[in-house]
């Protein structure tokens, strides 16, 4: 494989890892809130969180480009903070990936919290655990399958991201050229051998992820049986 391909692979793995870490940190409290709040805002927030699932990547990419650009709200903010403009940067890609994969992180965690119910927490409270204590020692460990599923899905979904990267990346080697856009570039330039090498790798990776996910979910159902 060419050095360019390796560079794209390393970049993609870095992007997916950082996205997953960020998403777990952001999605866990969000999922908790969605699972336990009955406020009027819940439906609206839930819809917003799910939006990236149904929106075409072109819509997300277009609005990200506008928002991150020097005249967009995010662009104005990042410039005011002295960070410059985020479009065509790794950070910009990271922001896009987090938004793009948000529902894949929130939903499994939210499901896990909902399945848990309020009872274990009430029991913890009677044992004089503080709410925060109960969350970290009772709720999180109980929801670990949900958290793991969220992590695997976020990682895999980011690796498979294409449209958003194409629209806000600018195809810069080592910064915004991921495996998926690299494959696209190879195909367009009719470099089919290179495209095959990367595409086959992607296929094997995706299969392995889904296989891992299936194993991840099995012990639970076995324990229940």
């Amino acid at each position, binding site marked *: 494989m060419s050095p360019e391909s390796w560079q794209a692979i390393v970049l993609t793995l870095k992007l997916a890892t950082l996205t997953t870490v960020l998403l777990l940190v952001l999605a866990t409290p969000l999922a908790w809130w969605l699972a336990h709040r009955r406020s009027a805002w819940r439906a609206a927030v839930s819809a917003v969180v799910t939006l990236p699932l149904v929106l075409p990547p072109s819509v997300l990419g277009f609005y990200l480009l506008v928002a991150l650009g020097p*005249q967009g709200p995010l662009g104005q903010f990042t*410039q005011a903070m002295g960070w*410059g403009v985020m*479009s065509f940067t790794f950070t910009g890609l990271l922001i896009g990936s987090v938004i793009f994969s948000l529902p894949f992180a929130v939903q499994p965690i939210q499901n896990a919290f909902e399945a848990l119910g309020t009872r274990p927490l009430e029991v913890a409270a009677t044992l004089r655990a503080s709410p925060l204590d109960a969350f970290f020692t009772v709720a999180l460990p109980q929801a670990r399958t949900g958290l793991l599923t969220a992590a695997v899905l976020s990682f895999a979904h980011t690796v498979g991201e294409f449209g958003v990267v194409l629209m806000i990346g600018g*195809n810069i080697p080592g910064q915004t050229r991921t495996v998926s856009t690299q494959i696209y570039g190879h195909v367009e330039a009719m470099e089919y051998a290179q495209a095959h090498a990367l595409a086959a790798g992607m296929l094997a990776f995706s299969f392995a992820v889904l296989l891992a996910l299936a194993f991840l979910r099995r012990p639970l159902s076995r324990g229940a049986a």
Partner: protein
Amino acid sequence: MKTVDRFILHTARVLFLGLALASGGLRAHAAEVTVAVAANFAAPMQQLSQAFERATGHRVRAAVGATGALVAQVRHGAPFHVLLLADDRSAALLEADGLAVPGTRFVYATGRLVLWSAERALVDLQGRVLGTPATAVSTGAQPTLRLAVANPKTAPYGAAALQTLERLGVAARWRPHLVQGENIAQAHQFIASRNAALGFVARSQVMPDGRLTQGSAWLVPAHLHDPLRQEAVLLRKGEHDPAARALLAFLKTEEARAIMRAYGYEP
């Protein structure tokens, strides 16, 4: 039940007949041509299509993309009748591989490259902005300096942009600032949305009737890159489509050439 069956059968027959009449009626008068157009030529093609439809009654469906992408699509069975490319190499290759009809290709236009910025004062008329150290360029609102080009691997205008930087001796200086659009339309969009401070686009994109519509621009002298001689060719899939041949003939008419000249193409 019987009456219901008969009713359905009758309805189907009427519908079928209606469809057959409608499509047959259309086909008798006009054919349709599917043309794949290099992104730089998208705007003039729209106007050319209208003129062609008015003149002949045929209809045009246009698909837009980077030259390299369109050629790759043709090699994989894309249902295009006519190709309007941005270079004068690809058509010959398609001809050699039996995908294009021999003897039908010709240069329909010669394009020009423009260094363009959406900011009014960024690009000077001599293009000296390229010669200044990249970090010293005044970029208005944008601290992260980006120079947008079309993907040089697939878009001839992207390749011409890199040639220009090289012949000016500033390629190394600008390399860290390059961002690539998938085709020249995306490069234009990066600049128009001000995500890139400046970049190389086709003259037709920013000077639709000879005048710059927005920002600042430098018309890159033609000697700074290989000529952007753009070839059209009839594809095998369009060999028996009268509208396809009519469209190629139309591109050579004075009416079509006037439209292209207005967009800054040299016939």
